[in-house]
C-alpha cells in the first residue's frame, strides 16, 4: 500500500482522476476573492485539451475572470453556482454562455449534490493545510480561511477528490475538517491564494449615520419581537449596517443579561465578540469572513465548523437554519409583496446571488431585510423585483431609515412593534414616501434571452434572469 496520495502536479492529478469531456468539476469559495485554485485547475484542464465541462462552484468572484476565457473557448459550457460578483455577472448577463447558469442556494446546492441531481465527477478542495493522505483543514497555514464548510458535501459525494494545498503537514493531521477517507489525490502548490483577498483583516461596522439609524431600528425590532430571550439564536450578514445591528443587539443582550444559544452563518469578529461576551453558547460556522473568526474557530471549542448541508440543506433531517430565531439580510430590491432580489442590479445585470439568503429566510422565525430607502436615487421598494431571489412569504419585515414595513402575514409582529411605539408603515406608503424624494423611476427595458435560472432550495424554478446588452 502506497503511504501517500501526493502527486507531482495538478495535471497529474487531473489525468489520474479520469476527467473527460462533458464531466463536472466542483470548487468551494472559502478563499473568496483571493482564490487561486479554481484558476490554476481550469488553466491546467484547458492546457490538457478537455472541453465541454460543467463548473459547479459554491460562489464565483471577480478573481475568477479567467473562467470567462474558458467559456469563450468551449472548455466550460455549463455553470452552476450560488453567487457571482459583478465582474463575472456582467459577462454572463451579456450572454457569453449559451446555456443558462443554474443559481442555487447554499443549502440547495449540497442538497442537490447529495440527492444525485447534480453529481460531481471531480471535486477540487483548496486546503490551507493537508497531510499526505488528504486529511485537511482551513484552520492553519499561511492561507488559513477557517471553516471549510461548503467543501464538505463536495468531498463526500464526488467521484474523485483532489486536495490542493500550500501547506503540506506531517501525517496525521488530527484537527481535520475533511478526513482522508474521501480524498484520492493531494497536490502541493506554492500558493492556493492571496491572503489579502481571502479574509478581511477586520470587518467594520458602518459609520454612515443612515446605516446606524437602520441598525438601531433593527435591534429594536428584534428586542420587541418576543424572540429575544434566553436561548435566542441569530444570524447576520457582513454588510456594514447588519454588523452595526449586531453591535446594538449585543449591547441590549448584555444589558438585559440574555444568554442566547447560537450565532450562525458566515462568521465575523462581531459574532466572535458576542460569543466571548456570553451572548451565545456556540457559533455554527460554515465560512469565516475575517481574521478574528479564523483565530476563534482555531482556538475556541465553542466555535464549531459545520458543513453546508448541516448549515442549510432542505433535504437534511434538519439543518441549523431550521433552529434560527432571527436573521438579518440585505436586498438590492424588495417589492410590495416582500419578494427580495439579491441577484441583479438596478439594470438587471447579475451582481450577486442567494448564497444563504433564501435558506435562512425560510428557516428563521423572523427574517428581517435591512436596506436604505434608496441607493443613488434608486428606490429600494418596487412594484415587482426584477428577479425573485427569496419569496416574500419568507420575509417578515423591512427596516429602512424612513420606517419599518411588516409583512401583513405576520400580524403578531405588527402588533408587537406598534405596541412598542416603533415607526411602522405600510410598505405601499413607504414606497410612495421614497418616490416623493427620488421621483418615480421609468421602467427598465426588458432583457433578451434567459441567461440564468434561479432554483429555489427545494429544486423548483423560482425565477429566470434575462440578458442585458453590454455597454
Amino acid at each position, binding site marked *: 500500500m502506497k503511504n501517500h496520495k501526493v502527486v507531482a502536479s495538478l495535471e497529474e492529478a487531473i489525468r489520474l482522476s479520469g476527467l473527460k469531456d462533458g464531466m463536472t468539476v466542483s470548487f468551494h469559495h472559502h478563499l473568496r476573492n483571493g482564490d487561486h485554485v479554481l484558476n490554476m485547475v481550469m488553466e491546467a484542464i484547458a492546457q490538457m485539451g478537455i472541453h465541454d465541462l460543467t463548473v459547479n462552484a459554491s460562489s464565483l468572484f471577480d478573481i475568477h475572470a479567467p473562467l470567462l476565457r474558458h467559456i469563450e473557448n468551449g472548455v466550460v459550457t455549463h455553470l452552476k453556482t450560488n453567487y457571482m460578483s459583478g465582474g463575472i455577472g456582467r459577462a454572463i448577463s451579456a450572454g457569453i454562455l449559451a446555456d443558462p447558469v443554474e443559481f442555487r442556494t447554499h443549502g440547495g446546492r449540497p442538497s442537490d449534490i447529495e440527492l444525485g441531481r447534480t453529481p460531481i465527477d471531480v471535486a477540487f478542495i483548496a486546503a490551507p493545510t493537508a497531510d499526505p493522505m488528504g486529511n485537511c483543514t482551513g484552520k492553519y497555514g499561511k492561507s488559513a480561511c477557517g471553516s471549510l464548510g461548503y467543501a464538505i458535501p463536495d468531498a463526500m459525494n464526488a467521484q474523485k477528490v483532489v486536495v490542493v494545498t500550500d501547506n503540506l503537514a506531517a501525517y496525521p493531521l488530527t484537527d481535520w475538517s475533511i478526513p482522508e477517507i474521501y480524498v484520492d489525490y493531494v497536490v502541493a502548490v506554492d500558493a492556493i491564494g492571496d491572503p489579502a483577498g481571502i479574509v478581511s483583516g477586520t470587518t467594520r461596522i458602518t459609520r454612515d449615520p443612515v446605516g446606524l439609524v437602520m441598525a438601531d431600528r433593527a435591534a429594536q425590532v428584534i428586542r420587541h419581537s418576543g424572540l429575544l430571550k434566553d436561548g435566542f439564536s441569530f444570524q447576520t450578514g457582513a454588510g456594514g449596517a447588519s454588523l452595526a445591528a449586531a453591535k446594538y443587539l449585543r449591547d441590549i443582550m448584555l444589558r438585559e443579561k440574555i444568554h442566547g444559544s447560537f450565532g450562525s452563518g458566515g462568521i465575523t469578529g462581531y459574532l466572535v465578540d458576542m460569543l466571548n461576551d456570553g451572548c451565545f453558547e456556540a457559533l455554527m460556522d460554515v465560512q469565516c469572513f475575517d481574521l478574528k473568526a479564523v483565530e476563534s474557530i482555531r482556538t475556541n471549542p465553542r466555535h464549531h465548523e459545520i458543513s453546508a448541508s448541516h448549515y442549510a440543506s432542505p433535504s437534511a433531517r434538519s439543518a441549523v437554519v431550521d433552529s434560527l430565531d432571527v436573521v438579518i439580510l440585505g436586498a438590492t430590491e424588495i417589492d410590495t409583496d416582500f419578494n427580495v432580489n439579491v441577484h441583479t442590479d438596478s439594470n438587471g445585470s447579475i451582481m450577486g446571488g442567494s448564497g444563504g439568503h433564501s435558506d435562512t429566510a425560510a428557516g428563521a422565525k423572523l427574517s428581517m431585510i435591512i436596506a436604505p430607502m434608496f441607493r*443613488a*436615487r*434608486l428606490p429600494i421598494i418596487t412594484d415587482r423585483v426584477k428577479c425573485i431571489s427569496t419569496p416574500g412569504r419568507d420575509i417578515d419585515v423591512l427596516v429602512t431609515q424612513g420606517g419599518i414595513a411588516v409583512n401583513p402575514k405576520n400580524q403578531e409582529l405588527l402588533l408587537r412593534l406598534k405596541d412598542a411605539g416603533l415607526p411602522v408603515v405600510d410598505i405601499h406608503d413607504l414606497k410612495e414616501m421614497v418616490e416623493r424624494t427620488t*421621483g418615480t423611476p*421609468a421602467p427598465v427595458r426588458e432583457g433578451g434571452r434567459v441567461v440564468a435560472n434561479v432554483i429555489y432550495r427545494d429544486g423548483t424554478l423560482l425565477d429566470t434572469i434575462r440578458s442585458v446588452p453590454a455597454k
Partner: protein
Amino acid sequence: MEIIKRAIAGTLESSDAYVEIEPNARGIRCELESVVEQQFGDNIRGLVEEILADCGVENAKIHIIDRGALECVIRARVEAAVMRGKGE
C-alpha cells in the same frame, strides 16, 4: 444671462453630480452620463433645460456626470455652475 467662461460644480461621489458648463455660440447643448440613465435620464435632461431657462441662460454647453443625485442636488450643482460661469 450669458455664460462667458468654463465653470464646474459638484463631484463624482455617489449620489452627487459633476457639472461642467461653457460658452456656446447658439442654443443649449446638454450631454448627460448617468448611472440611472434608464430610470431617470429623460427626467434629468428635462430638469436641466428647466433650470437653465429659470436662470435665463440661452446659450451654453453643459456636460453632466450624474452618480445618482436627487433632483435637488442636480439643481444646486447646475445653478452653482451657472453662477460661476457667468463670470461676475
